[in-house]
Each structure stands twice: as C-alpha cells, then as structure tokens.
C-alpha cells in the first residue's frame, strides 16, 4: 500500500491551493477630520460661481442598451440609450459634477435634514449624477417591478451592496467621508450605473443638458473649482469670488 505516494499527491494539491490565499483588504478609513471653528461669514456678502461646461469634438453616438436579460426591464424601460455624453444644442455638456475642491477648509456647514434620493426607475438610476453631503441621509428606492441590487464602490467610505427585490422598497444610507465620486452599480443589470459626489460643504452643482451650472451662496474668497465627468475625467480652475459678486468660469472638455 503506497500511502506515502497517495498522501504526497494529495498534499501537493492542497498545498498549491493554500499557497494562493492570504492577505485581506484593509477596511476603508471613515474617520472625518474634526472641523475647526468656521471663520465669520456674513450671508449678505455671499457670491456665486456660474458657468458652462462645453464639449469639443464629436462624442461617440449613444448606444441602445439591450435589456432583454430581464424581461421586466425590457418592458419597463422608456429610456434605453447610454448616457455617457449628454450634449445640448450649444455644445453644453450635461451630467458634469462641478464643485468647490479647495478654499473652504476650516469651515463647517449644517447638514440638511432632507435626504438625498436615488431611485431605480425603468432599470436606470435617477439621477445618474448627483451630489450630497457627508452625514446626510441617502434614500435609496426601487420603483421598479423587478429586483435590483445597489452596490456602492467607494474608496474612502465603506463599500455596501444591498438587494431590493420588492417594488417600493427603500433603504437609508449615509457616507461619513467626503469623496468625489462614489460609483453605484447594479450587478443584476450591468448597464445601470450612477455617481454621487459626497462633500462636507454645500457648494456643488450638476450641469443640466445645456451644460450650465450655478453654485450660489458662496462666501467670498479664492477657490479651486473642479469639474468631473464620468468619461472625460476632471478639470480644475482657480476662481476668486468677491463680496456679493459672481465669478464666471467655464470648462471645455475635448473628445475624439
């Protein structure tokens, strides 16, 4: 009886399997730095940053999403085109997240009681790009008569993945750290994705189809404003907001 041979054979296989394991992901840091006392800010002196995001070049044509992997989606969906590039008549680029990246350090702002909202409607996320505050409640709703999972894949906040198998089901979540952007996806329906910018201040906006944005009620000061697009990346500009003034800033993304 060649036990040694048999055990050698088995041991080699088991050892090979064991060798491939090891390690673990470190938990994402969620601690938020303590805010210093905010400098005095007279609301009467507030200004704003306005502008337009434009797209140069011809973006890839929107593609029709095949939703037949879920008959309910194929029946429910009214919008089946990809929305990577939303371009208005004057070249304005929609779904761009614009926010104050630098210049507000040391200030703190009250977190709104009203929740932010993301819904699953017609097997798409609504809205596709949006902003919310650190500590603000995010209400996640499934308005579809089919099941979804909502899977957030942040870098600075804890990842989560929740199933919503029943129409009308709602969950609440919060993010404890600022992060631009937190992606959402549905692993059931691979075409569903959305992005949320999580900030510790209220100075952000998302461009509409015309590419325009308006960030108002901003304390006077020098800022770095960043524009983020899911396919085209980010651009930054310095801007100075005077007392009661409006600073105009425009970004041009290029494609092709």
């Amino acid at each position: 009886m060649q036990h040694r041979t048999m055990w050698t054979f088995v041991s080699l296989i088991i050892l090979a399997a064991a060798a491939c394991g090891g390690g673990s992901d470190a938990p994402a840091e969620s601690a938020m730095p303590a805010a210093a006392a905010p400098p005095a800010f007279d609301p009467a002196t507030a200004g704003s940053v306005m502008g337009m995001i434009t797209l140069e070049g011809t973006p890839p044509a929107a593609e029709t999403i095949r939703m037949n992997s879920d008959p309910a989606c194929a029946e429910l969906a009214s919008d089946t085109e990809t929305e990577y590039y939303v371009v208005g008549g004057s070249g304005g680029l929609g779904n761009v997240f614009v926010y104050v990246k630098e210049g507000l350090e040391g200030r703190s702002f009250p977190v709104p009681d009203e929740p932010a909202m993301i819904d699953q409607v017609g097997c798409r996320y609504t809205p596709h790009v949006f902003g919310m505050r650190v500590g603000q409640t995010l209400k996640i709703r499934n308005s579809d008569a089919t099941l979804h999972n909502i899977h957030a894949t942040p870098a600075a906040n804890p990842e989560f993945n929740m199933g919503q198998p029943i129409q009308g089901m709602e969950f609440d979540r919060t993010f404890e750290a600022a992060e631009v952007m937190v992606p959402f996806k549905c692993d059931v329906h691979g075409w569903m994705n959305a992005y949320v910018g999580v900030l510790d201040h209220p100075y952000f906006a998302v461009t509409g189809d015309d590419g325009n944005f308006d960030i108002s009620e901003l304390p006077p000061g020098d800022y770095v404003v960043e524009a983020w697009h899911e396919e085209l990346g980010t651009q930054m500009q310095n801007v100075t907001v005077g007392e009661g003034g409006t600073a105009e800033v425009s970004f041009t993304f290029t494609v092709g």
Partner: protein
Amino acid sequence: MHWLHRYNRLLAAATLLLITAGGLVTSTGSGLAVPDWPNTYGYFMFAFPLSGMVGGILYEHGHRLIASVVGMLTIGLAVWLAQKEPRRWVRHIGWIALAAVVVQGLLGGITVLYFLPPPISISHAGLAQVFFALVVSLAIFTSPGWLARYGRSTDGERRIAADGILRRLVIVVPAAIYGQILLGAAMRHTGAGLAIPDFPLAFGRLLPPVWDPAIAIHFAHRVGALMVTLAVLATAGHVLAHHGGRRELTRPAWLLGALVFAQVTLGAWTVLSARDVTINTAHVATGALLFATAIVLCLRTHRDRFSDVAARIAAAPDAASAVAIGAPGGAEAGR
C-alpha cells in the same frame, strides 16, 4: 464498482460545469448580483423564484445551485466510497474531496459578503481546480482501466517506471498548469485581463515598456503560457515517441496537445475580443480540462507507484536489463 466509477464521472462532469458557471459569473461581472449569502435576496436558496433569475442573478444564483448539486453529489460519493471502497487511501481522498467542496462553498460565500476581495476570490478559483483534480483522480482510481493496471505486464510497467524523463515531465506539467491557473485567477480577480491590450506583442514590443502590478501579472501569465505549451509539447512528444503503444498514455497526450493549442488560442482571443464573455468563459473551462488531462496522464504514468502494482513488480524476477528504456510500448495495449 462500475456504477461507482460512472457516478464519479458524473461528478467530474458536474464539477466542470460548475467551474464553467463560475467563469461565467466573473466574465459577466455578476459576482455580486446576489448580495446576500447563503440566502438569495432573503429567500432560502432553493425557494428563490425562477422569475427572479434575471440578468446577473441568472449566473450567480445558477452557479450556487450547481454548486449545491456538486456538494450533494460529493457527499454521496464520500459515503459510497466509505461503504464500498476496499482501498483505504481512496476512501480518504473521498473525504478530502468532501472537505474541499465544503471549504470551497464557504470561500464562495465569504467572497460575496466581503465584496470579492482578490485573495479570497483567487483562493476560490484555485481550490475549485484542486477539487476538480481530486474528483478526476477518484474517477481514475475507480476506473476499470486503473483496476486492470491498463493491461500492463510487469515488463511494461517497468518500462514506464524506468523512463525518468517521462516520470518527471508528467509531474511538471500539471504543476505548471496549476501555476498558470492561479496566475489567470489573479488576472481575473484584480482586473488585469486587459492590462496588456495587444497580442502577441505587449504595447507593440516584446517586453512591456511600462510596468505595474497588473501588467506584471498579465505578462507573467503570457510567459507561463509559453512555458506550459513547451512542457506539454515535450511531454506529448515524448509519450508518442517512446510509449506509442500505450493508449492509456497516448490518448491524454494527444488531448493535452489539442487542449493547449485551444487554450492559447482562447487566451489570445480573450485579449483581442476585449474579454468577450463566451471566449473568456471558454478559456476558464479549457484551462480546467487541460489541468485534469495532465492529472490523468500523471496518474497513469505513475500507476506502478500504487501498492498493488508495486508489490507485483517487486515480486517478479529482475528483468530490468531486458527493458529498453524509453522504447515504444510494443504490443501491450492500454485501455
């Protein structure tokens, strides 16, 4: 015993189907389409409605259902072996296979609950192949050919036993293939599948002009593929040249050659098609088949090391001097 062998082959086929379904899960990015485990969207997994088998759930929940069937078949195999199998070491391998499939199920659950951490997912992929190898080995150990020692005479057994080159090659090949499988799993679970977007060159050159972990893993997999291909061709060529009369060796040797050709083609095609789901999944399944075939050739080559044959050779008169090492197998027909 004959039915036990058939049952074993059924389990091996089910395991290959399970590995293919697992490949589909990763190829379609459906690994987290069912966020909970062991339940499915709150349902006991066997009670989950068929109407919910949509999109990524079809792949992920389907994978879990096939895994359950494989798990139950493995329990049946271990119990069957425990009751009917006279060889203790075979019974032990049955229990080891059962332990492996249990651990495999747990790894599958853990990787879902922790959002697919690469070390766990790679372990899941690696253990899947180990389990497959165990099941295929059991199918070999319970096969009529194995039990009949492939019709080898003592001299025939000695001829194979004395072929040190073959004996080493058939161990190197499955080890190298398994290393390749682990590298492939690392590529798959770290998103490095397209880290080098062209083929056969790397960014238009023989060596990548830039390096990062993803490119390194991807390039290592390509180099590994070359080494495995050479090892397989050397082994198959050696078998055909020196043991051409032994069908139990030549058949897996031919199959190895065909599979390695298919596997390299599928690997290239996976890159060039930007990870087409069907091609990518076929690459996983063919890799498993390649590994299993290498295990079969290894076991058949080393048949004499298992007790009954070894004892027979030891008891026979010394005919080593009459054996032409590496000569063709002659009139002995394998099964």
